[in-house]
């Protein structure tokens, strides 16, 4: 059972990791928690839902092919990236020089706005999502590994590797790190803060969108409030890894997924969410800088 829960935890955890990256990147630059991030993840699932509808896939009991999955993934990521940029422009940029408290309140407002807009436009009831692969699986060492779990893991890893490359080796990626290290010094280099912040929101939101689609397909459901719990769990993952630290968010996400799965299996499945929040409290009390520190500043 241990190995089985490890596999389950890895799949869910890689999704937490994808969402956590957005929290941590924004925090690394602007020092506030973008509470609307979970709602962007939710919008990502809806994007995919409508794209599947548009290309004529039966959502109830329907099965999509791998190309159809990517046909939904890429546009949804783009749309979520654009929504993230819009969110920053309208909800955060006008108050950027204000206190962090006003940014946080604006974030809470934006979260409510996005969630309720989704309820108004798409209805508050849960809608079914089609499946990727019709429940096929293989077994390793007694653990059942479904194709969809494998796909989630592979897609997440590829996206995280791409992000890592972008942040490490491209000019814009280095500028994002420079701004995160020292804003004033970065501006003196001729780095356009607006552009860097916009890019940060676009990337984080696109990754959240990708996570949203995969969760929608994995659990077969989409509903307007799905961003709340996933959002706070990913936030926990970001804290666990050390907020502001991108590799930390990746590690924290995977770790949280595994802790949650094992806890759910060995303690009680009903306590799964409680375990995640217990982790949040423990980390905040005992090691508020996370397992990987942001590094010296």
């Amino acid at each position, binding site marked *: 059972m241990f190995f089985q829960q490890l596999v389950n935890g890895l799949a869910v955890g890689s999704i937490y990791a994808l969402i956590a990256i957005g929290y941590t990147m924004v925090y690394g630059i602007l020092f506030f928690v973008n509470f609307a991030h979970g709602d962007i993840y939710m919008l990502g699932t809806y994007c995919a839902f409508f794209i599947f509808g548009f290309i004529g896939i039966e959502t109830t009991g329907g099965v999509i092919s791998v190309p159809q999955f990517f046909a939904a993934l890429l546009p949804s990521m783009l749309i979520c990236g654009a929504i993230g940029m819009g969110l920053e422009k309208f909800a955060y940029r006008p108050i950027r020089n204000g206190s962090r408290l006003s940014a946080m309140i604006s974030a809470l407002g934006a979260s409510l706005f996005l969630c309720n807009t989704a309820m108004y436009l798409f209805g508050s009831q849960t809608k079914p999502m089609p499946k990727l692969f019709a429940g096929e699986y293989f077994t390793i060492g007694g653990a059942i590994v479904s194709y969809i779990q494998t796909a989630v893991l592979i897609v997440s890893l590829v996206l995280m590797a791409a992000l890592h490359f972008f942040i490490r080796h491209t*000019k814009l990626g*280095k*500028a994002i*790190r*420079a701004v*995160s*290290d*020292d804003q*004033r*010094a*970065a*501006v*003196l*280099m*001729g*780095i*356009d*803060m607006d552009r860097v912040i916009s890019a940060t929101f676009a990337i984080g939101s696109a990754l959240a969108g990708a996570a949203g689609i995969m969760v929608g397909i994995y659990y077969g459901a989409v509903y307007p409030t799905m961003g709340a719990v996933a959002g706070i769990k990913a936030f926990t993952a970001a804290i666990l890894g050390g907020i502001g630290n991108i590799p930390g968010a990746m590690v924290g996400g995977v770790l949280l997924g595994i802790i949650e799965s094992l806890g759910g299996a060995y303690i009680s499945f009903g306590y799964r969410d409680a375990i995640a929040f217990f982790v949040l409290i423990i980390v905040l009390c005992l090691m508020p800088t996370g397992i990987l520190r942001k*590094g*010296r*500043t």
Partner: protein
Amino acid sequence: MEESSPMKLEVEQLTAGYGSIEALHGINLSCSSGEMVAVIGSNGAGKSTALNCICGVVPASYGEVLLDGRDILDEPPHRIAMMGIAQVPEGRRVFPRLTVLENLEMGAYIVRDKAVFGERLEFVYNLFPRLSERQRQNAGDLSGGEQQMLVIGRALMRNPKFLLLDEPSLGLAPMVVENIFEIISGLVGSSEVGIIIVEQNAAMALSIANRGYVLENGRITMEASADELICDERVKAAYIGG
């Protein structure tokens, strides 16, 4: 080679300061390309504020900053950097989690031409060979002197028209300071860059500058050639000591 007329950076009636910012009460100063100007004064006199206003990172309430006659005071700081004004901020402010090379790359953020970047990198590495030895290390792991070299090199990466140095000697050992000042003074002789250096270490700054200003409580109280200032009894008593 084409001979261009020297560029001029002029500050007129610059007024600033509220809250925690040191005040400026309408200061005038200027610097031409190829010239080195020292601004000396005690802590809190407004030296850093003056440089920060020129770079657009601190708002001015009144006055003008003219770059070749064009007022740049209302431009955002990254635009001012792109126009060729580079500030080396007080307290060094390297990007600690970026490598030395990445810091230099950020210095050349506005340089698009790869060949130009290569030339600038070679220039900076020639100036500070230490940086090339440490190029793969995180800037946060360098010594204070090396960090000061890095931030000066970083600013030079974009071949600025004007270089503004804010307290480059602060917190460094005397030998290191001497080394760095030697390199700075070499820049004046060998390039077109105009340098404004703000220093508490007045003797050191005046020894390599062409002209100097004394800034007291947000006002320019003296303006003269560096040689005159160095010999002035009042300057000696207040800023040089002994």
